[in-house]
C-alpha cells in the first residue's frame, strides 16, 4: 500500500505551511509510515482515508498532530561527538574567561526528545572552568509531544545505548522500571518551550551559545536565510552558533563566519556585523 499522490501533496503542503519543512518527492514512504498510527487511532482503514477526512474537516488539533508526526526525529546522546568536545575544550573555556557574571545562556533550537539539551548540560558539568556557574538552557521544539517527553527525561534501554558513555549513564541517570530517567538535578536546569523556528521568536533574551543542528537542512533557502538572520538577533555579539555537519551559512547568510573549534567548527557573527545586532 502506498499513499496516493493527492494525499501526499496535501500533507506536503500542510507541513510546508506549518513548519517550512520540505518533503520532497520520494518521501512518500516516510509520510505513510509516520501517519499509519494516526490513521489507525482515528479509526480509518488507511492513510489515504485519514488524509481525505483531514482535508475535509481541517480540525486544527488533528492537523497539528500530522505536522508533529512528520517533524520529529530519533536522535542520540552527544550526537556527532565533535561539537560537544569543542564545547568542553574550546567554547566553554573561552566564554568562562569573558563572562564576569558567571552565567551562560544557551538555546537548543530543535531539541526533539531532549538528548541534545541534556547532553549540553552534562558537558557543562564536565567543564572545570564552569564549576559553580549558572547555566540557563532554553530548549525548544515545534512538537508538544516531544517537549512532554523531554520534560519527563525518561529513555528506553535502546535510547541510552545511543552514544551515551557508560560512566555518564551511571552518574546522571537512575532506573525507572525498564527505562532510565535522567536525574532531577539535570532535568530542572532545562526550560522546555514550544517554538516554531519559522515564525517570529517570542522574547527569550540573548544567548551565548545556540545549538541549531540538523534542522536547517529541512528548510528551503529563503526560510534558512530568515531563521539565521533572526538567530543573530537573539545572540550576544560574540556568541557561538553550532549547526549540523551538513549545514552551513555560506551563501545563505554571510553575516556569519565559520571558525574552527577543536575538530569541529562554530559560526560567529562577523566583527563588522556585530554592531548591527546590539
Amino acid at each position, binding site marked *: 500500500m502506498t499513499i496516493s499522490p493527492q494525499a501526499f501533496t496535501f500533507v506536503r503542503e500542510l507541513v510546508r505551511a506549518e513548519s517550512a519543512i520540505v518533503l520532497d518527492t520520494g518521501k512518500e514512504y516516510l509520510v505513510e509510515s509516520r501517519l499509519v498510527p494516526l490513521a489507525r487511532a482515528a479509526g480509518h482503514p488507511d492513510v489515504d482515508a485519514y488524509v481525505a477526512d483531514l482535508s475535509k474537516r481541517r480540525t486544527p488539533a488533528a492537523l497539528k498532530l500530522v505536522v508533529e508526526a512528520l517533524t520529529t526525529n530519533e536522535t542520540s546522546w552527544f550526537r556527532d561527538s565533535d561539537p560537544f568536545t569543542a564545547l568542553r575544550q574550546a567554547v566553554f573555556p573561552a566564554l568562562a574567561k569573558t563572562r564576569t557574571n558567571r552565567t551562560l545562556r544557551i538555546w537548543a533550537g530543535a531539541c526533539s526528545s531532549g538528548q541534545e539539551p541534556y547532553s549540553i548540560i552534562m558537558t557543562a558539568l564536565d567543564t572545570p572552568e564552569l564549576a559553580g556557574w549558572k547555566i540557563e538552557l532554553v530548549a525548544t521544539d515545534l512538537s508538544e509531544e516531544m517537549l512532554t517527553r523531554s520534560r519527563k527525561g525518561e529513555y528506553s*534501554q535502546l535510547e541510552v*545505548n545511543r552514544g551515551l558513555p*557508560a560512566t555518564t549513564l551511571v552518574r546522571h541517570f537512575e532506573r525507572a522500571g525498564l527505562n532510565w530517567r535522567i536525574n532531577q538535578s539535570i532535568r530542572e536546569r532545562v526550560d522546555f518551550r514550544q517554538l516554531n523556528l519559522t515564525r517570529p521568536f517570542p522574547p527569550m533574551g540573548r544567548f551565548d551559545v545556540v545549538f541549531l543542528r540538523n534542522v536547517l537542512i529541512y528548510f528551503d533557502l529563503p526560510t534558512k536565510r530568515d531563521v539565521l538572520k533572526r538567530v543573530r538577533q537573539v545572540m550576544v555579539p560574540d556568541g557561538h552558533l553550532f549547526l549540523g555537519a551538513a549545514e552551513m551559512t555560506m551563501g545563505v547568510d554571510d553575516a556569519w563566519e565559520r571558525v574552527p573549534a577543536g575538530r569541529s567548527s562554530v559560526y560567529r557573527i562577523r566583527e563588522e556585523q556585530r554592531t548591527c545586532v546590539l
Partner: protein
Amino acid sequence: MRALIVDDSRAMRRIVGRILGDAGFEVLEAGDGQEALTVLEGLDGAPDLACVDWNMPVMDGLTFITEVRKRPEWRSITLMMVTTESESDRIVRALAAGAHEYLIKPFTGEAMLEKLDLLGLLRTSTEV
C-alpha cells in the same frame, strides 16, 4: 585493527562479528573467558578491542576483564562489556574491574558503532 569477541552465543558472535567486520576489524572469537585468555596468549600482539559478554560458562566476563587487567602486555586492549545485565550496580562493577565501555543487549549496529566512536576506535579503523 583486531577485535576479540567473547560470547557463549554463536548467534551473538556472528552479529557482533558482522558489525565489527564492516567497521574494518579483523575478528577473533572465543566462547568463554578461559578460552579467550588462551586465544590472547597465542596471539602475536594484543588485539585493539575485546567485546565481552558477562554471563558465560567456565569463566564469566567480569573475571576475564579482571584477568586481562592484571597483565601489562594486554594493557592496550580496549574492553567493552556487551551484555543483557542492565542494572546500574552491574555497570559500575564492570567499569571498576577495568571495562572501558558497556553496551546493553539488545542493541542496534548503529549503537555499537557509536560506542566504538566514543572509544576512538572507529575513525582509526575506517582510515586504514
